[in-house]
């Protein structure tokens, strides 16, 4: 028979007809030519002549001239034959979607299980991504955050690792504002100030920030009510006591009062008037915890703690961080170079305050995370990796379900192929189904994830709801969920689709639908997926167990001071308008009266709260002045009252503690910890050496050495620390520490009433036990670890459901075989054993791979573990045991079903 198609293709070539349409046209014309040819042959024409005559019909020019005018042609690059043209793509897609919808509706059980499985995986990812999106990608909800830079003071000679970022002095900031040309606007903000707010007769703790007048404009914010500061409100020190409050503070602390504007409040005993409420969602430019209100920088003397009260006139007081908006086209390195030139000039002009110092710029988003940045980043990335694995598990579960379903659909697929459906077309159809499943799972997962996230975030410390950042659900999260839904659909769909579309048509059609089983190869793929699942979930379980053990260990870490019998009270007499004399008197009286109270061993005061201390730099050692400020000696500085070491059980190693005689007029003294002594006076006695603290004129003599404790966080690397006697270093806000004889909780009411007896007006708002201090220090870690645990269990659940599903399916497919075995005399126990062995072989294979993976991963995460080796036997054995038990149950249930197969019924079915 002549090859008409070849002839036709030759003639149509170059007409650029859309490939699918071209194939149809060729098909149709081939029929015509063949009819004509057969007719001529029937009329007795020689085949050669008949061929010529038929083919001649093609030679008329109409074909080439007319055809492109009436059929869709390709204008883009050629698409290979068999691919769909774009014109019909949407039509086909729509048809596929409708068909997929029908198929999913037809098996609701499968659909529900698959969608829920995916929703779990996608939900977990959405939850973690929401957290990432809020804190890492988008920590400051302001206009064009990318063009904002934070400006801090650093030491000129410090290496990158040693760099400590400190604020800038107010006067230096003014110079940067006036002299720099790289910013369109440059503002400053202080650290978060803990303030006592008196609103009527009620006192409460609030957090405020001093800001320069242009702060809000620099960030591009708008007031929700009222206005921001005017330039004249930030021109004269102490002249205009006004405040702008946050939206959450307005809603929560002021009950959303409509008459909030013009309202008078007292902050640290100074009257202020509220002039505006900032836009919703803005809680300062710190990622996690922000202020309730903002106050013009000119109110510094009124609100800053005593050591910083001269911030406006003293260049040595570093109280403001700069925030600048780069001019369009400006870059961070350029801006830094510009500011460093100004800093160098300032260093020459004011050497006493600026020697050895320069400025460092960083993107505001990075600055917003502060010191928590690296931990948060690593933690989130790890969680993201974990939920990624959970999602993979969910995918492989659904892939297994699809494979199982595919064998049930072999007949349908074969029929469709016999009717002319191409493989490509079939794969597309099957993928449409899986993407649709992914999509449905994505919708459920999106909501589940966000809800889960809210639940998680509700575990944040409840004390300050107005100050913790809100989780932000925005388009990023939505797009993320959408993309992973689709990608997920493709991932779990592709293998089963390819496998299914390879269905051998003729054989399958001949198969009896009932006997259609899974070929060995298909079983092989499902088994491989399942062993992988077991391996991944074991790995996740081991990792969760390791972290769990690590946190458990952290609770037992000795911070270097006693916590069992400790109560800490935060009292701020200075913020309630007390003068120095009265405060000194108060501190003394409290200490003496509590010391005498039954049930109290001792009481003392200190300026630092445990685990909140930050190292300061700028300490100078006598005789080593040349190291001076450019090469920072950084230490924690703690001002303490008498009896502090005794109250905290910190051992004195050498020398003496402070006494009543260490007064202002006596020789300035200091106690250091053994870490500092060993670091700066190796092989010598540190006692009797002299050091100078930043902002101090005279040197202090070291009179004692105490044991190093944890200052900034639990289990931290040892840091240097210096203790100053309260009598030589006045401060108006200190923490009261009480060592009780019994449980500290039982003493709370006695202690509080005693404090009220001493001074009823003082606000006692924050009382913590030593254990609570530890728990709070571990708060972030605990949330991370609980999440990890939840995901580990989720993974275990998914893997066991997958195992159960696969075995149950196999049992069902093999009913006849099992029936035969039983008819031949195999007992129930034998069948039970057969099925369980089959399942557990897979599980043990997975466990072996999982253990290897766990060991490898353990090595990678070992530096985040405290007190637990990454080869921790308890974690490895424990996780393996849990997995084996759960798997055994998942195997037992289908096995039991199998052993109950009635051979007569099973055989009759075939």
């Amino acid at each position, binding site marked *: 028979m002549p090859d008409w198609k070849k002839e036709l293709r030759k003639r149509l070539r170059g007409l650029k007809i859309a490939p699918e349409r071209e194939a149809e046209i060729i098909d149709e014309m081939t029929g*015509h030519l063949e009819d004509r040819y057969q007719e001529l042959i029937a009329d007795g024409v020689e085949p050669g002549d008949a061929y010529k005559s038929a083919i001649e019909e093609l030679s008329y020019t109409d074909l080439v001239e007319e055809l492109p005018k009436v059929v869709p042609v390709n204008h883009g690059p050629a698409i290979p034959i068999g691919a769909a043209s774009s014109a019909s793509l949407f039509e086909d897609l729509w048809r596929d979607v409708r068909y997929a919808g029908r198929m999913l509706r037809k098996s609701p059980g499968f659909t529900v299980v698959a969608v829920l499985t995916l929703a779990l995986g996608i939900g977990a990812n959405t939850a973690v991504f929401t957290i990432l999106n809020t804190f890492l990608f988008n920590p400051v909800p302001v206009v064009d955050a990318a063009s904002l830079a934070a400006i801090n003071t650093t030491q000129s000679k410090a290496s990158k690792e040693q760099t400590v970022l400190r604020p800038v002095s107010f006067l230096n900031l003014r110079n940067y504002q006036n002299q720099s040309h790289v910013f369109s606007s440059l503002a400053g903000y202080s650290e978060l100030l803990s303030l006592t707010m008196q609103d009527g007769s009620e006192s409460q703790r609030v957090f405020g920030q001093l800001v320069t007048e242009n702060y809000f404009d620099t960030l591009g914010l708008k007031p929700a009510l009222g206005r921001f500061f005017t330039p004249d409100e930030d021109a004269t020190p102490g002249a205009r006591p006004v405040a702008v409050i946050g939206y959450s503070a307005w809603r929560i602390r002021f009950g959303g009062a409509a008459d909030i504007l013009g309202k008078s409040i007292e902050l640290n005993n100074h009257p202020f008037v509220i002039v505006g409420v900032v836009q919703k969602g803005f809680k300062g430019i710190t990622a996690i915890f922000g202020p309730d209100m903002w106050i013009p920088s000119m109110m510094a003397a009124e609100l800053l703690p005593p050591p910083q009260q001269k911030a406006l006139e003293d260049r040595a007081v570093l109280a403001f961080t700069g925030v600048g908006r780069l001019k369009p086209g400006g870059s961070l390195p350029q801006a830094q170079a510009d500011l460093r030139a100004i800093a160098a000039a300032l260093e020459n002009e004011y050497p006493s305050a600026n020697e050895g110092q320069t400025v460092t710029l960083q993107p505001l988003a990075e600055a917003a995370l502060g010191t928590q940045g690296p931990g948060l980043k690593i933690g989130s990335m790890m969680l993201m990796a974990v939920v990624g694995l959970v999602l993979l598990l969910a995918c492989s579960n659904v892939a297994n379900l699809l494979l199982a379903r595919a064998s049930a659909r072999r007949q349908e697929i074969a029929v469709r192929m016999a009717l002319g459906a191409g493989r490509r077309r079939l794969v597309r159809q099957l993928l449409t189904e899986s993407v649709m499943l992914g999509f449905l799972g994505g919708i459920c997962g999106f909501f589940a994830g966000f809800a889960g996230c809210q639940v998680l975030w509700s575990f944040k410390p409840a004390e300050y709801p107005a100050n913790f950042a809100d989780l932000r659900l925005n388009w990023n999260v939505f797009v993320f969920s959408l993309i992973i839904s689709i990608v997920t659909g493709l991932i779990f769909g592709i293998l089963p689709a390819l496998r299914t579309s390879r269905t051998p048509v003729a054989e399958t059609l001949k198969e009896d639908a009932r006997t259609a089983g899974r070929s060995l190869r298909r079983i092989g793929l499902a088994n491989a997926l399942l062993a992988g699942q077991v391996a991944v979930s074991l790995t996740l379980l081991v990792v969760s167990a390791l972290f769990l053990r690590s946190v458990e260990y952290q609770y037992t870490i000795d911070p270097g001071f006693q916590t069992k019998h400790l109560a800490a009270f935060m009292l701020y007499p200075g913020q309630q308008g007390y003068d120095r004399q009265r405060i000194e008197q108060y501190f003394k009286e409290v200490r003496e009266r509590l010391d005498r109270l039954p049930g109290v061993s001792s009481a003392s005061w200190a300026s630092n709260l445990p685990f909140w201390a930050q190292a300061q730099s700028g300490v100078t050692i006598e005789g080593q002045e040349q190291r001076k400020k450019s090469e920072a000696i950084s230490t924690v500085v703690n001002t303490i009252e008498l009896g502090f070491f005794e109250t905290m059980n910190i051992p004195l190693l050498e020398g003496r503690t402070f006494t009543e005689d260490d007064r202002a007029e006596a020789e300035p003294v200091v106690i250091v910890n053994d870490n500092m002594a060993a670091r700066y006076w190796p092989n010598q006695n540190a006692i009797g050496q002299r050091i100078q603290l930043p902002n101090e004129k005279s040197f202090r003599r070291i009179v004692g050495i105490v044991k190093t404790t944890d200052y900034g966080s639990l289990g931290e690397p040892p840091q240097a620390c210096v203790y100053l006697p309260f009598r030589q270093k006045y401060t108006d806000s200190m923490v009261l520490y009480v060592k009780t004889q019994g449980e500290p909780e039982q003493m709370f009411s006695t202690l509080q009433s005693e404090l009220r007896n001493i001074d009823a007006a003082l606000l006692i708002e924050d009382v913590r036990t030593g254990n609570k201090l530890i728990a709070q220090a571990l708060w972030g870690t605990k949330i991370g670890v609980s999440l990890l645990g939840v995901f580990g269990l989720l993974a275990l659940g998914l893997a066991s459901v997958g195992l159960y599903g696969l075995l149950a399916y196999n049992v069902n497919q093999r009913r006849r075989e099992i029936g035969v075995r039983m008819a031949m005399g195999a007992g129930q126990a034998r069948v039970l054993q057969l099925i369980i062995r089959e399942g557990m072989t897979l599980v043990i294979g997975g466990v072996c791979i999982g253990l290897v993976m766990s060991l490898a991963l353990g090595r990678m995460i070992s530096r985040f573990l405290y007190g637990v080796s990454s080869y921790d036997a308890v974690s490895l054995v424990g996780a393996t045991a849990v997995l084996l038990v759960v798997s055994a149950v998942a195997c037992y249930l289908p096995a039991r079903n199998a052993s109950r197969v009635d051979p007569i019924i099973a055989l009759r079915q075939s």
Partner: protein
Amino acid sequence: MGVPLEQEWKKGSAEMLILALIEDQPRHGYEIGKLIERRSGGCLRFHVASLYPLLYRLENRGWIQGRWVEKASQRRRRYYRLTPSGQKVLAQQRRSWQEFVEAVSRVTGLENA
């Protein structure tokens, strides 16, 4: 000069011929070509190169609709049927053709012949 003229004629009338042939029942391309040839006594003949572009054109206009049909032990064929809008067009073309033929006849005096 005779050939182009004949082609023009054919083009003008061809659309109507096709519409008329599938008015009562769907037919495939070869059948349509065959019927035109037979009923015109061999006077009118469409070959592949002219018939199919014409069919596709009519289909584009929505006057006819093609559908693949498979019958037992036969190759699949594309059958064309008249759409409702095709029906209207056919009626209209019949009328104007009628008028045209009458006009030509009156002018040339063919009607008396």
